[in-house]
Protein backbone atom coordinates (compact mmCIF):
# COMPACT_ATOMS: atom_id res chain seq x y z
CA UNK A 1 0.00 0.00 0.00
CA UNK A 2 1.34 3.35 -1.03
CA UNK A 3 1.82 5.40 2.12
CA UNK A 4 1.54 8.71 0.24
CA UNK A 5 -1.98 7.77 -0.88
CA UNK A 6 -2.95 6.91 2.64
CA UNK A 7 -1.68 10.24 3.94
CA UNK A 8 -3.63 12.01 1.28
CA UNK A 9 -6.86 10.48 2.58
CA UNK A 10 -6.56 12.48 5.76
CA UNK A 11 -5.28 15.70 4.15
CA UNK A 12 -8.40 17.84 3.92
CA UNK A 13 -6.68 21.05 2.81
CA UNK A 14 -7.90 20.61 -0.75
CA UNK A 15 -11.43 20.23 0.57
CA UNK A 16 -10.95 23.42 2.55
CA UNK A 17 -9.61 25.26 -0.48
CA UNK A 18 -12.84 24.65 -2.37
CA UNK A 19 -15.06 25.23 0.64
CA UNK A 20 -17.36 27.89 -0.87
CA UNK A 21 -17.88 25.92 -4.01
CA UNK A 22 -18.62 22.79 -1.99
CA UNK A 23 -20.80 24.64 0.52
CA UNK A 24 -23.00 25.77 -2.34
CA UNK A 25 -23.45 22.08 -3.10
CA UNK A 26 -24.35 21.34 0.49
CA UNK A 27 -26.99 24.07 0.33
CA UNK A 28 -28.70 22.00 -2.36
CA UNK A 29 -28.73 19.00 -0.05
CA UNK A 30 -30.55 21.05 2.58
CA UNK A 31 -32.85 22.67 0.05
CA UNK A 32 -33.95 19.36 -1.41
CA UNK A 33 -34.12 17.82 2.06
CA UNK A 34 -36.54 20.42 3.44
CA UNK A 35 -38.79 20.39 0.40
CA UNK A 36 -38.94 16.61 0.12
CA UNK A 37 -39.42 16.23 3.89
CA UNK A 38 -42.41 18.58 3.70
CA UNK A 39 -43.83 16.61 0.79
CA UNK A 40 -43.15 13.26 2.49
CA UNK A 41 -44.77 14.31 5.76
CA UNK A 42 -47.88 15.76 4.17
CA UNK A 43 -48.40 12.91 1.70
CA UNK A 44 -47.55 10.32 4.34
CA UNK A 45 -50.11 11.81 6.70
CA UNK A 46 -52.76 11.91 3.97
CA UNK A 47 -52.10 8.31 2.98
CA UNK A 48 -52.23 7.26 6.66
CA UNK A 49 -55.62 8.97 7.02
CA UNK A 50 -56.77 7.15 3.88
CA UNK A 51 -55.65 3.81 5.30
CA UNK A 52 -57.68 4.46 8.44
CA UNK A 53 -60.68 6.01 6.71
CA UNK A 54 -64.17 5.17 7.92
CA UNK A 55 -65.08 4.66 4.25
CA UNK A 56 -63.80 1.21 3.38
CA UNK A 57 -63.43 1.96 -0.35
CA UNK A 58 -60.79 4.61 0.39
CA UNK A 59 -58.54 2.34 2.46
CA UNK A 60 -57.05 0.24 -0.40
CA UNK A 61 -55.83 3.41 -2.11
CA UNK A 62 -53.87 4.40 0.97
CA UNK A 63 -52.42 0.92 1.22
CA UNK A 64 -51.53 0.83 -2.47
CA UNK A 65 -49.85 4.23 -2.20
CA UNK A 66 -47.77 3.24 0.81
CA UNK A 67 -46.74 -0.13 -0.59
CA UNK A 68 -45.88 1.32 -4.00
CA UNK A 69 -43.44 3.92 -2.70
CA UNK A 70 -42.16 2.01 0.30
CA UNK A 71 -41.02 -0.91 -1.80
CA UNK A 72 -39.37 1.03 -4.61
CA UNK A 73 -35.67 1.92 -4.14
CA UNK A 74 -35.10 5.67 -3.90
CA UNK A 75 -32.60 5.70 -6.74
CA UNK A 76 -34.95 3.91 -9.11
CA UNK A 77 -37.74 6.27 -8.16
CA UNK A 78 -35.51 9.32 -8.77
CA UNK A 79 -34.50 8.13 -12.22
CA UNK A 80 -38.05 7.16 -13.06
CA UNK A 81 -39.47 10.51 -12.00
CA UNK A 82 -36.74 12.42 -13.84
CA UNK A 83 -36.64 10.51 -17.12
CA UNK A 84 -39.86 8.52 -17.49
CA UNK A 85 -42.54 10.68 -15.90
CA UNK A 86 -41.88 13.66 -18.24
CA UNK A 87 -42.37 11.37 -21.22
CA UNK A 88 -45.65 10.05 -19.87
CA UNK A 89 -46.84 13.57 -19.09
CA UNK A 90 -45.75 14.78 -22.51
CA UNK A 91 -47.82 12.02 -24.10
CA UNK A 92 -50.85 12.84 -21.94
CA UNK A 93 -50.62 16.60 -22.36
CA UNK A 94 -49.40 16.52 -25.94
CA UNK A 95 -46.69 19.05 -25.04
CA UNK A 96 -43.02 18.99 -24.29
CA UNK A 97 -42.40 18.38 -20.60
CA UNK A 98 -39.10 18.63 -18.77
CA UNK A 99 -38.50 18.45 -15.05
CA UNK A 100 -35.85 20.62 -13.48
CA UNK A 101 -33.52 18.22 -11.63
CA UNK A 102 -34.45 19.80 -8.29
CA UNK A 103 -38.15 19.20 -8.98
CA UNK A 104 -37.48 15.55 -9.83
CA UNK A 105 -35.32 15.19 -6.74
CA UNK A 106 -37.98 16.61 -4.43
CA UNK A 107 -40.73 14.52 -6.03
CA UNK A 108 -38.72 11.30 -6.08
CA UNK A 109 -37.42 11.49 -2.52
CA UNK A 110 -40.62 13.01 -1.15
CA UNK A 111 -42.75 10.21 -2.57
CA UNK A 112 -40.35 7.48 -1.49
CA UNK A 113 -40.26 8.68 2.11
CA UNK A 114 -43.99 9.42 2.26
CA UNK A 115 -44.40 5.67 1.79
CA UNK A 116 -42.30 4.91 4.86
CA UNK A 117 -43.96 7.64 6.89
CA UNK A 118 -47.46 6.40 6.08
CA UNK A 119 -46.79 3.34 8.20
CA UNK A 120 -45.13 5.34 10.96
CA UNK A 121 -48.08 7.72 11.14
CA UNK A 122 -50.69 4.98 10.99
CA UNK A 123 -49.23 2.92 13.81
CA UNK A 124 -48.59 6.06 15.87
CA UNK A 125 -52.14 7.30 15.51
CA UNK A 126 -53.68 3.89 16.15
CA UNK A 127 -51.64 3.52 19.33
CA UNK A 128 -53.70 6.27 21.00
CA UNK A 129 -56.32 4.55 23.19
CA UNK A 130 -59.85 4.66 21.78
CA UNK A 131 -61.15 5.99 25.07
CA UNK A 132 -59.24 9.24 24.55
CA UNK A 133 -61.19 9.86 21.35
CA UNK A 134 -64.49 8.87 22.92
CA UNK A 135 -63.92 11.29 25.77
CA UNK A 136 -63.46 14.03 23.17
CA UNK A 137 -66.56 12.99 21.24
CA UNK A 138 -68.61 12.87 24.44
CA UNK A 139 -67.58 16.46 25.15
CA UNK A 140 -68.80 17.58 21.75
CA UNK A 141 -65.42 17.82 20.02
CA UNK A 142 -65.45 17.36 16.24
CA UNK A 143 -63.28 14.78 14.50
CA UNK A 144 -60.84 17.42 13.28
CA UNK A 145 -60.53 18.96 16.71
CA UNK A 146 -59.90 15.57 18.30
CA UNK A 147 -57.23 14.83 15.70
CA UNK A 148 -55.53 18.20 16.24
CA UNK A 149 -55.79 18.50 20.01
CA UNK A 150 -55.86 14.92 21.33
CA UNK A 151 -54.38 12.47 18.82
CA UNK A 152 -51.57 14.32 17.04
CA UNK A 153 -49.98 15.87 20.13
CA UNK A 154 -49.74 12.45 21.76
CA UNK A 155 -48.89 10.47 18.64
CA UNK A 156 -46.14 12.85 17.59
CA UNK A 157 -44.36 12.46 20.91
CA UNK A 158 -44.39 8.70 20.50
CA UNK A 159 -43.43 8.77 16.83
CA UNK A 160 -40.72 11.41 17.01
CA UNK A 161 -37.72 9.05 17.34
CA UNK A 162 -38.98 6.98 14.41
CA UNK A 163 -39.69 10.10 12.33
CA UNK A 164 -36.17 11.34 13.14
CA UNK A 165 -34.73 8.05 11.86
CA UNK A 166 -36.66 8.51 8.64
CA UNK A 167 -35.46 12.09 8.34
CA UNK A 168 -31.84 11.04 8.82
CA UNK A 169 -32.30 8.44 6.08
CA UNK A 170 -33.90 11.05 3.87
CA UNK A 171 -31.00 13.41 4.40
CA UNK A 172 -28.56 10.65 3.52
CA UNK A 173 -30.62 9.87 0.44
CA UNK A 174 -30.21 13.47 -0.77
CA UNK A 175 -26.67 12.44 -1.80
CA UNK A 176 -28.30 10.39 -4.58
CA UNK A 177 -29.61 13.47 -6.34
CA UNK A 178 -26.20 14.18 -7.87
CA UNK A 179 -27.02 11.23 -10.14
CA UNK A 180 -29.79 13.23 -11.81
CA UNK A 181 -27.39 16.21 -11.95
CA UNK A 182 -28.59 18.33 -9.03
CA UNK A 183 -25.40 20.23 -8.10
CA UNK A 184 -25.30 19.00 -4.50
CA UNK A 185 -22.17 18.38 -2.43
CA UNK A 186 -21.36 15.05 -4.05
CA UNK A 187 -21.86 16.54 -7.49
CA UNK A 188 -19.52 19.47 -6.69
CA UNK A 189 -16.98 17.06 -5.30
CA UNK A 190 -16.98 15.11 -8.53
CA UNK A 191 -16.47 18.32 -10.50
CA UNK A 192 -13.50 19.38 -8.39
CA UNK A 193 -12.14 15.86 -8.67
CA UNK A 194 -12.14 16.12 -12.44
CA UNK A 195 -10.08 19.30 -12.22
CA UNK A 196 -7.69 18.36 -9.46
CA UNK A 197 -7.38 14.61 -10.08
CA UNK A 198 -7.19 14.05 -6.32
CA UNK A 199 -10.39 12.27 -5.35
CA UNK A 200 -9.32 10.89 -1.96
CA UNK A 201 -9.29 14.05 0.22
CA UNK A 202 -12.43 15.32 -1.45
CA UNK A 203 -14.46 12.18 -0.80
CA UNK A 204 -13.05 11.93 2.72
CA UNK A 205 -14.05 15.54 3.28
CA UNK A 206 -17.57 14.91 2.04
CA UNK A 207 -17.87 11.86 4.30
CA UNK A 208 -16.68 13.81 7.34
CA UNK A 209 -19.02 16.74 6.63
CA UNK A 210 -22.07 14.48 6.23
CA UNK A 211 -21.18 12.46 9.30
CA UNK A 212 -20.67 15.47 11.56
CA UNK A 213 -23.77 17.27 10.29
CA UNK A 214 -26.13 14.34 10.76
CA UNK A 215 -24.66 13.46 14.13
CA UNK A 216 -24.93 17.03 15.39
CA UNK A 217 -28.46 17.64 14.13
CA UNK A 218 -29.97 14.39 15.39
CA UNK A 219 -28.36 14.90 18.80
CA UNK A 220 -29.61 18.46 19.03
CA UNK A 221 -33.14 17.35 18.17
CA UNK A 222 -32.96 14.64 20.85
CA UNK A 223 -31.64 17.10 23.37
CA UNK A 224 -34.43 19.59 22.85
CA UNK A 225 -37.31 17.16 22.30
CA UNK A 226 -36.67 14.53 24.94
CA UNK A 227 -38.07 16.45 27.88
CA UNK A 228 -41.08 17.68 25.93
CA UNK A 229 -41.67 14.16 24.66
CA UNK A 230 -41.64 12.36 27.99
CA UNK A 231 -42.28 14.81 30.82
CA UNK A 232 -45.99 14.07 31.06
CA UNK A 233 -45.39 10.34 31.46
CA UNK A 234 -43.27 10.53 34.57
CA UNK A 235 -44.91 9.73 37.86
Amino acid sequence: MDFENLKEVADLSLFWEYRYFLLRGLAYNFYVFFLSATLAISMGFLAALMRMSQWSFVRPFGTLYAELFRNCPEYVLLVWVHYVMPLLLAYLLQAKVNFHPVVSAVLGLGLAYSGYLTETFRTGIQAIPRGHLEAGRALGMSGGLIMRRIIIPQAIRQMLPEIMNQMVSLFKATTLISLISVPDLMYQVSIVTQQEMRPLPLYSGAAVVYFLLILAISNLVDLFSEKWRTQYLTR
Partner: protein
Amino acid sequence: MPPAEQQQAVVEVINLHKYFGDLEVLKGIDLKVFQGDVVTVLGSSGSGKSTLLRCINFLESPTSGEVRIAGRPMGVRYDKTGKKHFESNRNITKMRSEIGMVFQQFNIWPHMTVLENVIEAPVHVKKMPKQEARELGKAYLKKVDLLDKMDEYPARLSGGQQQRVAIARALAMQPKVMLFDEPTSALDPELIGEVLEVIKALAMEGTTMMVVTHEVGFAREVSNRMVFLHDGLVEDDGPPSQVIDNSKSERCRQFFSKMLH
Protein backbone atom coordinates in the same frame (compact mmCIF):
# COMPACT_ATOMS: atom_id res chain seq x y z
CA MET B 1 -93.41 20.50 41.18
CA PRO B 2 -95.89 19.64 38.40
CA PRO B 3 -96.67 15.97 37.93
CA ALA B 4 -94.12 14.11 35.85
CA GLU B 5 -96.44 13.72 32.87
CA GLN B 6 -96.57 17.45 32.23
CA GLN B 7 -92.87 18.06 32.63
CA GLN B 8 -90.43 18.01 29.75
CA ALA B 9 -88.17 14.99 30.15
CA VAL B 10 -84.44 15.81 30.02
CA VAL B 11 -83.77 12.39 28.55
CA GLU B 12 -86.43 10.37 26.85
CA VAL B 13 -85.70 6.93 25.45
CA ILE B 14 -88.37 5.52 23.16
CA ASN B 15 -88.46 1.86 22.10
CA LEU B 16 -84.69 1.73 21.72
CA HIS B 17 -83.16 -1.26 19.94
CA LYS B 18 -79.47 -1.85 19.38
CA TYR B 19 -77.84 -4.66 17.47
CA PHE B 20 -74.14 -5.46 17.31
CA GLY B 21 -74.11 -7.59 14.19
CA ASP B 22 -76.67 -10.31 14.88
CA LEU B 23 -76.63 -9.77 18.62
CA GLU B 24 -79.53 -7.73 19.96
CA VAL B 25 -78.20 -5.95 23.01
CA LEU B 26 -81.11 -3.58 23.63
CA LYS B 27 -84.56 -5.00 22.91
CA GLY B 28 -86.85 -1.99 23.20
CA ILE B 29 -86.06 0.30 26.09
CA ASP B 30 -88.46 3.03 27.23
CA LEU B 31 -87.29 5.47 29.84
CA LYS B 32 -87.79 9.07 30.95
CA VAL B 33 -85.42 11.07 33.09
CA PHE B 34 -86.67 14.38 34.49
CA GLN B 35 -84.91 17.47 35.75
CA GLY B 36 -83.17 16.70 39.05
CA ASP B 37 -83.63 12.94 38.74
CA VAL B 38 -80.85 10.68 39.92
CA VAL B 39 -81.42 7.42 38.11
CA THR B 40 -79.20 4.46 38.84
CA VAL B 41 -79.05 1.65 36.31
CA LEU B 42 -78.24 -1.82 37.57
CA GLY B 43 -78.14 -5.24 36.01
CA SER B 44 -75.79 -8.12 35.44
CA SER B 45 -73.03 -7.79 32.88
CA GLY B 46 -74.25 -8.04 29.32
CA SER B 47 -77.67 -6.68 30.26
CA GLY B 48 -77.08 -3.60 28.08
CA LYS B 49 -76.45 -0.94 30.73
CA SER B 50 -73.39 0.62 29.12
CA THR B 51 -74.83 0.33 25.63
CA LEU B 52 -77.91 2.22 26.81
CA LEU B 53 -75.79 5.12 28.08
CA ARG B 54 -73.67 5.11 24.93
CA CYS B 55 -76.78 5.24 22.75
CA ILE B 56 -78.11 8.21 24.71
CA ASN B 57 -75.18 10.41 23.66
CA PHE B 58 -74.88 8.67 20.30
CA LEU B 59 -71.42 7.19 20.86
CA GLU B 60 -73.33 4.18 19.52
CA SER B 61 -76.09 4.87 17.03
CA PRO B 62 -79.34 3.09 17.93
CA THR B 63 -80.51 0.49 15.41
CA SER B 64 -84.08 1.70 15.87
CA GLY B 65 -86.09 3.75 18.30
CA GLU B 66 -85.19 7.20 19.48
CA VAL B 67 -83.48 9.23 22.14
CA ARG B 68 -84.65 12.76 22.89
CA ILE B 69 -82.70 15.30 24.85
CA ALA B 70 -84.96 18.02 26.25
CA GLY B 71 -87.49 17.10 23.59
CA ARG B 72 -85.10 17.17 20.62
CA PRO B 73 -84.37 13.90 18.86
CA MET B 74 -80.71 12.90 19.23
CA GLY B 75 -78.76 12.11 16.09
CA VAL B 76 -81.75 12.16 13.74
CA ARG B 77 -84.02 14.76 12.25
CA TYR B 78 -87.34 14.65 10.43
CA ASP B 79 -88.00 16.41 7.16
CA LYS B 80 -91.32 18.05 6.25
CA THR B 81 -92.86 14.77 5.15
CA GLY B 82 -91.95 13.20 8.50
CA LYS B 83 -89.20 11.05 7.03
CA LYS B 84 -86.30 10.23 9.36
CA HIS B 85 -82.73 11.22 8.44
CA PHE B 86 -79.44 10.88 10.23
CA GLU B 87 -78.36 14.23 11.61
CA SER B 88 -75.16 15.83 10.32
CA ASN B 89 -72.01 15.15 12.30
CA ARG B 90 -71.85 18.80 13.22
CA ASN B 91 -75.27 18.76 14.85
CA ILE B 92 -74.69 15.44 16.64
CA THR B 93 -71.49 16.91 18.00
CA LYS B 94 -73.34 20.01 19.17
CA MET B 95 -76.00 18.01 20.99
CA ARG B 96 -73.40 15.76 22.59
CA SER B 97 -71.83 18.78 24.22
CA GLU B 98 -75.04 19.09 26.26
CA ILE B 99 -74.60 15.62 27.73
CA GLY B 100 -71.76 14.96 30.15
CA MET B 101 -70.23 11.49 30.26
CA VAL B 102 -67.84 9.87 32.70
CA PHE B 103 -66.22 6.61 31.64
CA GLN B 104 -65.12 3.52 33.53
CA GLN B 105 -61.53 4.03 32.33
CA PHE B 106 -61.49 7.81 33.13
CA ASN B 107 -60.04 8.60 29.67
CA ILE B 108 -58.20 11.65 30.91
CA TRP B 109 -55.79 13.01 28.27
CA PRO B 110 -52.27 12.36 29.57
CA HIS B 111 -50.49 15.08 27.56
CA MET B 112 -52.49 17.86 29.19
CA THR B 113 -52.38 19.06 32.76
CA VAL B 114 -55.41 18.61 34.98
CA LEU B 115 -56.69 22.15 34.33
CA GLU B 116 -55.99 21.88 30.60
CA ASN B 117 -58.10 18.72 30.51
CA VAL B 118 -60.99 20.54 32.16
CA ILE B 119 -60.93 23.68 29.98
CA GLU B 120 -60.25 21.95 26.65
CA ALA B 121 -63.88 21.57 25.60
CA PRO B 122 -65.14 24.92 26.99
CA VAL B 123 -62.36 26.73 25.08
CA HIS B 124 -62.42 24.78 21.82
CA VAL B 125 -66.04 23.66 21.59
CA LYS B 126 -67.89 26.49 23.34
CA LYS B 127 -65.27 29.09 22.29
CA MET B 128 -65.15 30.46 25.80
CA PRO B 129 -62.33 33.00 26.40
CA LYS B 130 -59.40 31.21 27.97
CA GLN B 131 -59.30 33.29 31.13
CA GLU B 132 -62.98 32.76 31.78
CA ALA B 133 -62.57 29.03 31.14
CA ARG B 134 -59.69 28.85 33.61
CA GLU B 135 -61.83 30.41 36.32
CA LEU B 136 -64.68 28.03 35.52
CA GLY B 137 -62.29 25.08 35.43
CA LYS B 138 -60.84 26.00 38.80
CA ALA B 139 -64.32 26.24 40.28
CA TYR B 140 -65.12 22.70 39.15
CA LEU B 141 -61.75 21.38 40.27
CA LYS B 142 -62.49 22.86 43.66
CA LYS B 143 -65.79 21.05 43.63
CA VAL B 144 -64.04 17.70 43.17
CA ASP B 145 -61.40 18.78 45.68
CA LEU B 146 -58.46 18.78 43.26
CA LEU B 147 -57.66 22.46 42.92
CA ASP B 148 -54.15 21.87 44.33
CA LYS B 149 -53.44 19.40 41.50
CA MET B 150 -54.49 21.67 38.64
CA ASP B 151 -50.99 21.96 37.12
CA GLU B 152 -50.07 18.29 37.50
CA TYR B 153 -50.02 15.80 34.66
CA PRO B 154 -52.54 12.96 35.06
CA ALA B 155 -49.80 10.33 35.35
CA ARG B 156 -49.01 11.71 38.79
CA LEU B 157 -52.59 11.22 39.99
CA SER B 158 -54.24 8.17 41.53
CA GLY B 159 -57.13 6.48 39.73
CA GLY B 160 -59.63 8.09 42.07
CA GLN B 161 -58.15 11.52 41.43
CA GLN B 162 -58.16 10.92 37.68
CA GLN B 163 -61.82 9.98 37.79
CA ARG B 164 -62.60 13.15 39.74
CA VAL B 165 -60.80 15.16 37.04
CA ALA B 166 -62.96 13.40 34.46
CA ILE B 167 -66.06 14.43 36.42
CA ALA B 168 -64.88 18.06 36.58
CA ARG B 169 -64.12 17.94 32.86
CA ALA B 170 -67.65 16.78 32.05
CA LEU B 171 -69.23 19.30 34.43
CA ALA B 172 -67.27 22.19 32.91
CA MET B 173 -69.46 21.92 29.80
CA GLN B 174 -72.46 22.55 32.08
CA PRO B 175 -74.45 19.69 30.58
CA LYS B 176 -78.17 19.14 30.94
CA VAL B 177 -77.56 15.61 32.19
CA MET B 178 -74.55 13.62 33.41
CA LEU B 179 -74.05 10.01 32.40
CA PHE B 180 -71.79 7.87 34.58
CA ASP B 181 -70.72 4.56 33.03
CA GLU B 182 -69.53 2.38 35.93
CA PRO B 183 -67.43 5.24 37.31
CA THR B 184 -65.84 3.17 40.10
CA SER B 185 -65.43 -0.25 38.44
CA ALA B 186 -61.80 0.32 37.43
CA LEU B 187 -60.76 1.69 40.82
CA ASP B 188 -58.95 0.06 43.71
CA PRO B 189 -61.40 -0.52 46.57
CA GLU B 190 -59.88 2.17 48.79
CA LEU B 191 -60.36 4.81 46.08
CA ILE B 192 -64.02 4.12 45.36
CA GLY B 193 -65.30 6.15 48.30
CA GLU B 194 -63.84 9.49 47.23
CA VAL B 195 -65.44 9.23 43.77
CA LEU B 196 -68.83 8.17 45.14
CA GLU B 197 -68.71 11.11 47.57
CA VAL B 198 -68.29 13.54 44.65
CA ILE B 199 -71.17 11.97 42.74
CA LYS B 200 -73.32 12.03 45.86
CA ALA B 201 -72.60 15.74 46.37
CA LEU B 202 -73.65 16.44 42.78
CA ALA B 203 -76.84 14.47 43.30
CA MET B 204 -77.65 16.54 46.40
CA GLU B 205 -77.23 19.74 44.38
CA GLY B 206 -79.89 18.57 41.98
CA THR B 207 -77.70 17.54 39.04
CA THR B 208 -79.72 15.40 36.67
CA MET B 209 -77.87 12.14 36.20
CA MET B 210 -77.90 8.52 35.16
CA VAL B 211 -75.42 6.26 36.89
CA VAL B 212 -74.61 2.74 35.77
CA THR B 213 -73.16 1.10 38.85
CA HIS B 214 -72.68 -2.08 40.84
CA GLU B 215 -72.58 -0.23 44.16
CA VAL B 216 -75.97 -1.16 45.58
CA GLY B 217 -75.56 0.73 48.85
CA PHE B 218 -74.56 3.90 47.01
CA ALA B 219 -77.44 3.49 44.56
CA ARG B 220 -79.94 3.08 47.38
CA GLU B 221 -78.61 6.18 49.10
CA VAL B 222 -78.36 8.66 46.21
CA SER B 223 -80.94 7.74 43.63
CA ASN B 224 -84.60 8.57 43.59
CA ARG B 225 -85.14 6.01 40.87
CA MET B 226 -83.59 2.72 39.99
CA VAL B 227 -83.80 0.94 36.66
CA PHE B 228 -83.01 -2.75 36.57
CA LEU B 229 -82.03 -4.06 33.15
CA HIS B 230 -82.05 -7.68 32.18
CA ASP B 231 -81.15 -9.04 28.77
CA GLY B 232 -81.75 -5.75 26.98
CA LEU B 233 -85.09 -4.93 28.62
CA VAL B 234 -86.21 -2.86 31.60
CA GLU B 235 -87.12 -5.51 34.14
CA ASP B 236 -88.03 -3.13 36.95
CA ASP B 237 -88.17 0.63 37.37
CA GLY B 238 -89.04 2.49 40.55
CA PRO B 239 -87.77 3.85 43.86
CA PRO B 240 -84.59 2.02 44.89
CA SER B 241 -86.14 0.56 48.04
CA GLN B 242 -88.87 -1.03 45.97
CA VAL B 243 -86.52 -2.38 43.28
CA ILE B 244 -83.97 -3.71 45.74
CA ASP B 245 -86.24 -5.07 48.46
CA ASN B 246 -89.67 -5.67 46.98
CA SER B 247 -89.34 -6.20 43.28
CA LYS B 248 -92.11 -7.99 41.45
CA SER B 249 -89.48 -9.40 39.15
CA GLU B 250 -88.03 -12.76 40.09
CA ARG B 251 -84.74 -11.99 38.24
CA CYS B 252 -84.38 -8.70 40.02
CA ARG B 253 -84.88 -10.34 43.44
CA GLN B 254 -82.31 -13.01 42.55
CA PHE B 255 -79.80 -10.39 41.42
CA PHE B 256 -80.04 -8.40 44.64
CA SER B 257 -80.04 -11.42 46.89
CA LYS B 258 -76.72 -12.42 45.28
CA MET B 259 -75.36 -8.89 45.61
CA LEU B 260 -76.37 -8.44 49.21
CA HIS B 261 -75.44 -11.83 50.66
